[in-house]
């Protein structure tokens, strides 16, 4: 599988570290913290996920990927989403 990095271009998946679902948002207080840390949907289909380009530009990126087909629909820098 190849992951498109917004800076480096298409790279072999071995260059990346997988972090998982990008959709959980850190809650401001204690409420919802357990869910934020531990609970995941295990989606079948398109999901947004965090990947770290460890052996390239060393940036966190957010990739849209279909977990059933491995089709990749696009990627952006994770910080672009966070800002």
């Amino acid at each position, binding site marked *: 599988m190849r992951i498109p990095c*917004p*800076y*480096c*271009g298409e*790279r*072999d998946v*071995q*260059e990346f570290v997988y972090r998982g679902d990008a959709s959980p948002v850190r809650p401001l207080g204690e409420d919802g913290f357990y869910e934020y840390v531990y609970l995941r949907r295990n989606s079948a289909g398109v999901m947004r996920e965090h990947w770290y380009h460890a*052996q*390239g*530009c*060393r*940036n966190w990126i957010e990739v849209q990927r279909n977990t059933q087909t491995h089709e990749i629909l696009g990627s952006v*820098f994770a910080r672009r989403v966070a800002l």
Partner: protein
Amino acid sequence: MAKGLEISECQRFGLATVMLRKNANHAAVGAALQVAAPADPTWVASNELTMIGTGPGMWLALTETPSQHWSATLAERLAGVASVSDQSGGYVIFRIAGSSARTLLQRGAFIDLTPPAFGAGSVATTVIAHIGVIIWQIDDVPTFHVALFRSFAGSFREWLDTASVNLTF
């Protein structure tokens, strides 16, 4: 050394990482250094300074004519714009040139090194033989420069020698 392939180690250079500060933009780096620091994985050289793109807001600054206080001067010029960290002793730079240079590197790199995907002016931060490398192409000979952590120099040199054994020229 076989014809069509020349491998040497750059002996004298100054190398530093340059990382953009949070609220600065990369045009300010260019203005401070009088080298248009590239926003993509390419390199630009001017005034004996080469700026090599390694990530968004990240560069390697390279000079082959380093003065004693080279990186401190660089940091002064970039004050408030970018952080500078001297890496001159931390990296080795291999120069790999000749008609077989691309074939040799392609045996180790997962990325396409043939034009138009990669050519003179291109930069790639990637991995060869499990060793993190920064590759940039100098000219169409082709000549490549490969920078890596100095402690991996022996292992990388071994890989180069092994991978180039049956190259035909």
